[in-house]
């Protein structure tokens, strides 16, 4: 599958819709191990992105990511605003002027997003954050084997971890067996990618 502007826009639209739909659930996860606002935060960005596309539709492929980056950075706040915002921004930079992404290019773009989160968050895989969904998702994608089942299993594994970054880390042991809200919203991000097109075919 080749990622075009249309496909990318579908990806982010589905993501935004899923976030808005799961808003309560995401906040409920955050209520238990954080401060209860992750759904509200993410939905704010999602809503703004959907509205902005009504007014100014993206012209180039990179615009999809840039616009998402701007909405998350300037409209969301909290930890997820700068983290997702930076990811989308780094993805836009990696795309540059390309208007189509081959499978391998897509993987590299998503890796750039992943690195953006790591650097912005000064965080690593294993700390029970969104990174713990991104890393295995990228790996599966590389092998053309990403499925919703794999995402499901991944989230379950993240749930078993003890948090050492973000608000949930203040809970220590008590964070074990609770769903990390950022991991849950990242799962939505990759589910949306799967729904936008068949990534595993050509």
């Amino acid at each position, binding site marked *: 599958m080749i990622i075009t502007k249309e496909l990318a826009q579908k990806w982010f639209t589905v993501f935004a819709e899923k976030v808005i739909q799961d808003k309560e659930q995401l*906040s409920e996860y955050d*209520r238990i191990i*954080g*401060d*209860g*606002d992750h759904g*509200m*935060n993410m939905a*704010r960005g999602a809503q703004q992105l959907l509205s902005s596309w009504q007014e100014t539709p993206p012209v180039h492929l990179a615009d999809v990511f840039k616009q998402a980056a701007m909405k998350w*950075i*300037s*409209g*969301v*706040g*909290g*930890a*997820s*605003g*700068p*983290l997702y915002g930076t990811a989308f921004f780094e993805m836009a930079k990696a795309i540059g002027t390309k208007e189509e992404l081959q499978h391998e290019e897509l993987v590299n773009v998503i890796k750039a997003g992943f690195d953006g989160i790591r650097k*912005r*968050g000064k965080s690593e895989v294993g700390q029970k954050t969104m990174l713990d969904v991104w890393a295995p998702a990228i790996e599966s994608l590389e092998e053309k084997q990403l499925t919703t089942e794999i995402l499901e299993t991944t989230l379950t594994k993240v749930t078993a971890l003890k948090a*050492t*970054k*973000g*608000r949930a*880390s*203040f*809970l*220590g042991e*008590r964070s074990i067996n609770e769903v990390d809200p950022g991991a849950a919203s990242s799962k939505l991000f990759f589910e949306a990618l799967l729904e936008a097109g068949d990534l595993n075919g050509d």
Partner: protein
Amino acid sequence: MKKIINQPEQVLVDMLAGYKLVHDDVTYLEDTHVITRAQFTSNKVGIISGGGSGHEPAHAGFVGLGMLDAAVCGHVFTSPTPDQVFSAIKAADQGSGVFLVIKNYSGDCMNFEMAKDLAELEDIAVDYVIVNDDVAVFDSSYTEGRRGVAGTILVHKIIGAAAEKGASLEDIKTLAESVVAHLATVGVAIKPAIVPEVGKPGFDLDEDEMEFGIGIHGEPGYSREKIKTSREIAEELIHKIEVETKWTTDQTLAVLINGMGATPLMEQYIFAHDCLNILQEKGYKVQFKKVGNYMTAIDMAGVSLTLLQLEDAKWLEYLTESTLAPAW
């Protein structure tokens, strides 16, 4: 959830518009939820604080001569965005640079640092301190580290007074870091907070339970116990601070007893009585004391105890200096 509000999604804008209507001596930048002084002292370093809302009177209530120049107000318990912080930086810049007081939460650190980057692109000198006074949180290089909580108010006051006296951006940075290094807070809750948009408490406590070591965003703490007397709570909190800071009892201290929002002053003064008695019995010299709601967690019932080692005699002067900030 029972609250005196209109739409839960509107609490931030309704509250800030209310703040502006009540206080004539501030300017309200509506688009970015920033409250600034209406008049600036010329040429001083601008002092900015902020973070999520729900901690009232923090942070807008500390904007005024002698304390902050601007407060950036995020959504409830949500760090403001870089744009919001940048808007405050531009407003508070009086030509000598701007200093940011950041509480140690991933969100705040990231958003404020991104704003600093934006400001530096426009040649505004920006520096900051990260306040991490909450000794309830285990601090190591493998964790997020300690949170920033009520002690932040003492940082505002001290550097606010220093800035008013003409301290440079570098001086303020040194001063702020030194104050933070001598600052310790720990809090308890007997009733959790309810975020208006969430409608449910951040954690659940039985009618006979309390929680030690809570954060100011409804985060649960380090241990849940049967409700204790004020004296026992005071002993536990002082003990916790002593264990974590390893201070010796010959310290000269400033003490801040902070109500979490729904705890009446009656209880705060009873708790202050126990804290100050215990500190005195142990041999500490308390030279500054303050009791009230300064850094709240919406409608949480509980208190926090902040101790600041008065390393430098100047700090006491800065603390007692008069200010026009309405909430001090």
